């Protein structure tokens, strides 16, 4: 187990370094400078700006300076927001994205597990078809489409209908911003639907697989109640593969925040990221890419450890693996 953790940790660190290096050199290939606008800037001012942002140094020196700064958590200043540090922007806006992400992940995983379990237990019956229909639709509807559809259907039409019906000003499903819990329903649902679909499909396959195992027949023939067989023997074993996709799921949810935050005008980090890409804000793109990548690498590392803890084949393996 210890070797397993150390090995995973080393791979994670190596990956973070690859990302830092790749980001740095790719950004230096990028066409245009952040301050090349419509107007030509006098040469003296250009040189001053270069000196201010350290762009007059040779590439390799800048690379090492960047590595040193990053290791201290200093991601530099944003080039478009005056006098704001990238790390400050992350600190201010990431909590909103995290809030949205965690809500949709919890919704997706729990509802997905529920649908998956139900459809496996009621295999080839109405519930099964229903759950798999929901799952296949969830896989096939991109978050930006479902987001806009919900905004229109529930946010505009249905909420207006409710307002008329009860003669109030209360907006049931607000279509923008991130304030009351009511604001959070539609974005979380739009973002969580894909996770729901993936988890439901995986859980169903995994449950069906486990239900055909000999030890389930043994458990039944020992006279255990249906409840015990399902809860303690089937679900506990079937849930293992679901844990492994928590990493990819977090990645999908995180990239989903880029569009969902834009659709619902949520002041999160994803919105800033998309904007900084459009404005050639080097330091922001580098800083945010690095931040997102490290965050997901850390999530993957934790998921691997979690998997090691719940899977006895890894937990109990001595030395090997």
């Amino acid at each position: 187990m210890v070797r397993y953790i150390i090995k995973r940790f080393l791979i994670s660190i190596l990956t973070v370094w690859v990302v830092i290096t790749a980001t740095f050199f790719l950004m230096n290939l990028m066409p245009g400078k952040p301050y090349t606008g419509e107007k030509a800037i006098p040469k003296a001012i250009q040189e001053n700006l270069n000196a201010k942002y350290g762009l007059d140094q040779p590439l390799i020196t800048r690379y090492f300076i960047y590595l040193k700064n990053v290791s201290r958590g200093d991601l530099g200043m944003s080039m478009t927001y005056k006098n704001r540090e990238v790390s400050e922007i992350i600190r201010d806006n990431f909590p909103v994205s995290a809030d949205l992400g965690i809500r949709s992940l919890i919704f997706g995983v729990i509802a997905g597990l529920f649908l998956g379990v139900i459809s496996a237990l009621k295999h080839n019956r109405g519930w099964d078809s229903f759950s798999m229909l929901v799952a296949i639709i969830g896989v096939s509807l991109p978050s930006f489409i479902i987001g806009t559809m919900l905004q229109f259907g529930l946010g505009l039409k249905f909420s207006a209908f409710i307002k008329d019906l009860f003669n109030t000003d209360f907006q049931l499903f607000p279509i923008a911003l991130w304030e009351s819990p009511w604001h959070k329903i539609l974005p979380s649902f739009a973002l969580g639907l894909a996770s729901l679909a993936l988890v439901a499909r995986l859980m169903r396959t995994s449950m069906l697989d486990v239900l055909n195992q000999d030890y389930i027949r043994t458990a039944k023939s020992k006279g255990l109640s249906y409840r015990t067989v399902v809860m303690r023997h089937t679900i506990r074993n079937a849930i293992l593969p679901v844990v492994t996709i928590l990493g990819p799921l977090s990645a999908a949810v995180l990239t989903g925040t880029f569009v969902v935050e834009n659709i619902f005008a949520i002041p999160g980090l994803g919105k800033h990221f998309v904007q900084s890409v459009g404005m050639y804000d080097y330091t922001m793109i580098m800083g945010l890419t690095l931040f997102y990548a490290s965050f997901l690498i850390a999530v993957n590392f934790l998921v691997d450890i979690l998997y090691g803890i719940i899977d006895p084949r890894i937990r109990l393996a001595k030395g090997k693996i």
Partner: protein
Amino acid sequence: MEAIAKERFEPIPKNIQAGQIIGRKPLSYWQDAWRRLRMNRVAMASMWVLLFIFLVAIIGPVLFPQYRENHLNETLMAPNAKYWFGTDDLGRDNFARVLRGSRISLFIGLTVAFISLIIGVLYGGISGYIGGWLDSLMMRIIDILITIPDMIILILLLVVLKPGVGTLILALSLTSWTSMARLVRGQVLQLKEQEFILAARVLGAGTWRIILRHLIPNALSVIIVRFTMSIPGIIFSEAFLSYIGLGIRIPEASWGNLASQGAQQFPSNLWLFFIPAAFICVTMLAFNLFGDGLRDALDPKMRK
């Protein structure tokens, strides 16, 4: 013991082969798979839908080529007899744009899936077949690549490179070959230990013969299913990237940038968003359902 009289024996008719004839025509693996696929109604319906969309993408832009023409006095018209899908904010015919978009989106989806297939089969095949330190090295490289989220690699690449169809194909291929490579490696590792490979080697078959005649045909069904299932993901990525402004640029059309353009008009002029969105959803749904059916048809374990 009682002696058996000779008369009790009856001579067998000369024609022994008559009893040995196999009544039904023998089915090859692929014929059998096709038969099973045909029985799956959902998969067949999806197949027809996909064929229809392919047909639209191939001949549509030939019949309606005016996807770039502006008609500045006919902007933002609702669907009508002249413009079946309405017009956009510069008066371009949305019907022609959706047709053009189908061609571009499907072209990107299929090309990227095909490139990933080739890289994946070669990389995974070499890694799995040769094994040893080379395998470890190649797999560590993949481990590192898949730890970095695809969308972040894509966004970085597209920020740096000039936007366009070629760039998008390059960037998407770079991120999507890894899963195929891992799948093929797994298959090769599993197959190469089996007895029929040993038998082939004992009979004197060379490495290439084993790879081409024994390993690839046996892994083919899994590869085909993964190939089919990877296309909706690529179409999704293209739409996503075009939606956030990094993919196909106007006046070129793709489903993603049409949907993005339509969403900017939201909540008025809804058809500009919902028509391309419907094309994206129906295509992804059909690919997913067809892929599921294909997997059931090709996987011998499902055979009852």
